[in-house]
């Protein structure tokens, strides 16, 4: 176990260095400058040169890389856009993103697994085929398009605000109503973000169930006189869910990428939007840090997935 951990950590470190170097290369090789973004006729070019110098942009690229690393670890890395510590900017938004993604994940798992399990119960029945088609529809729908249509529909139907973390005119609301308002603002974007996941995971669960149902031990369980229900929901389900647990770990990489569009559409103040704005503004410190952090989260996610799998599958635990 210790050796396994050590190996994993070493691997992690190696991957991390690779990630930071690669992203640094990508960013600094790009044309465009973070400073010359304003086209204000009252700004003289001398000032812009001075500003670039203040950001170390005149130094060689490799030096900039090490400066970035040093600043990141000493907490002295500031955003070009508003001069605030990058980590602070990320920290104040990450909870919003995590909340949104957590809810989306909960929706995915609580809807997709039952959907997949029930579909696989009667494969190729009408309902299963309907589910299959629905899942492909869900996988194929452009999320932002759907979001637009949904926002339009809800505003027309209910005339109630949908954008942002909460409603802004909340005078006269009781506490439970404020909670409901928050939930409403959370549920809509999370559900739309979840659609892809629901579609994918329900397919995955379904095929996993179908695979397991053909296993010998299912026949054994039946031969003991267990009812179909018990065999299906106890013996088969447990085995089918094993690989699904690992998917928890793979949710994280999609977190930031998947959030960019939805957070912009729903005016959700999270990491995805920060990342997008930073890209637009050539805010190198922020882009780099977000890329690195999400890579770290991914690595941690994979690691957790491995551990989870070990907990869930007795065959792994004792090896």
């Amino acid at each position, binding site marked *: 176990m210790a050796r396994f951990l050590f190996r994993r950590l070493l691997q992690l470190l190696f991957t991390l260095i690779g990630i930071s170097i690669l992203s640094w290369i990508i960013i600094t090789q790009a044309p465009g400058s973070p400073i010359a973004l304003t086209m204000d006729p009252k700004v003289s070019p001398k000032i812009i040169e001075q500003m670039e110098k203040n950001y170390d942009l005149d130094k060689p690229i490799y030096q900039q890389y090490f400066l970035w690393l040093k600043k990141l670890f000493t907490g002295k890395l500031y955003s070009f856009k508003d001069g605030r510590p990058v980590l602070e900017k990320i920290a104040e938004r990450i909870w919003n993103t995590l909340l949104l993604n957590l809810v989306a994940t909960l929706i995915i798992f609580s809807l997709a697994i039952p959907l997949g399990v029930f579909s696989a119960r009667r494969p190729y029945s009408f309902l299963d085929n309907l589910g299959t088609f629905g899942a492909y529809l869900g996988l194929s729908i452009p999320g932002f398009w759907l979001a637009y249509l949904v926002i339009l529909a809800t505003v027309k139907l209910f005339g109630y605000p949908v954008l942002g973390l909460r409603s802004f005119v909340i005078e006269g609301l009781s506490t439970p109503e404020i909670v409901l308002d928050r939930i409403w603002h959370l549920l809509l974007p999370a559900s739309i973000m979840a659609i892809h996941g629901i579609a994918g995971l329900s397919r995955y669960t379904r095929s996993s169930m179908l695979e397991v149902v053909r296993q*010998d031990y299912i026949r*054994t369980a039946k031969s003991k006189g267990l009812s179909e229900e018990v065999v299906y929901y106890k013996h088969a389900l447990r085995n089918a869910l094993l690989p699904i647990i690992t998917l928890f770990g793979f949710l994280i990489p999609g977190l930031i990428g998947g959030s960019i569009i939805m957070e912009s559409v729903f005016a959700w103040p999270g990491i995805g939007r920060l990342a997008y704005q930073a890209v637009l503004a050539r805010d190198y410190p922020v882009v780099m840090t977000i890329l690195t952090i999400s890579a770290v989260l991914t690595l941690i996610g994979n690691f957790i997935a491995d551990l989870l799998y070990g907990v869930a599958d007795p065959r792994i635990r004792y090896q």
Partner: protein
Amino acid sequence: MRHPLLEVRSLTTHFFTEDGIVRAVEDVSFEIYPGEILCLVGESGCGKSVTGLSILKLIPIPPGQIVRGEILFNGRDLLKLSEKEMEGVRGNEISMIFQEPMTSLNPVFTIGDQIMEAIQLHQKLNKRDARKKAIEMLDRVKIPSPEKRIDSYPHQLSGGMRQRAMIAMALSCQPKLLIADEPTTALDVTIQAEVLRLLREIQREMEMSVMLITHDLGVVSEVGDRVAVMYAGRIVEYGPIEDIFHEMRHPYTRGLLESIPQLEVKKTRLNAIPGQVPNPLNLPEGCKFHPRCPLRIEDCRREEPPLFEVKEGHYSRCLRWKECR
């Protein structure tokens, strides 16, 4: 004459696949008497496993379907029972063990859980008693330190141990009939013998009947009372073990027997049966064995021969059974 425990009459099981109908079991009849071991023998794909599964109605439906026949168990036709009633039979009155001990146990439950499940279900014991009973069963199948082993997961056991656990599980409710589908095939030779011996021992102790499905005539000779030889979904020869081994009346049985390597007889070459098992989707007309048969005549092509009674309790499905020795 004793009443048979199980009487299978004209059992016919087909699989309706998109490529056509697979007639896996066609018009199979036999009976098993209390306390005896009936061996169902044949090459793989001959329908012997399907026969076993059909008795417990464990055929995957669809594509499988039991087309006709009767399976009388203690006089009750199992085919007429509802699924609910069938659940009361499986594991309780009739149990089954399978070929692959590696894959036939659920990897995510301990063997104790899996044994207790059947006990709790059929004997309505509480958890503690069920556990006690499970330990007892493990002890009975000679698994060392059963109190510890009961909490093991299948992958922590060796193949032989696993098969013992399977047997313990199958026998935990004292069934009257055990269907053992190639129980030793996947095991090492030495362990095979042990497991067989165990099976025989317990069978005697519990006065239980066993339907032993195997392709291995060596196994049959060791434990069988009577033998049914299957080929292409049909029983081609059926009778007491001595008759089958010494007075076989079907060329297929003979072929099978000749292909067993026998240590005492010095033969340079095994007499394997020429040709291949026919495609189940496209069985030959007439006698299904005729393309491979050394004794075939024109009539064999034309129609399927019925089971001829060679002598009392010994049947053969060969037109030329008299010539076959």
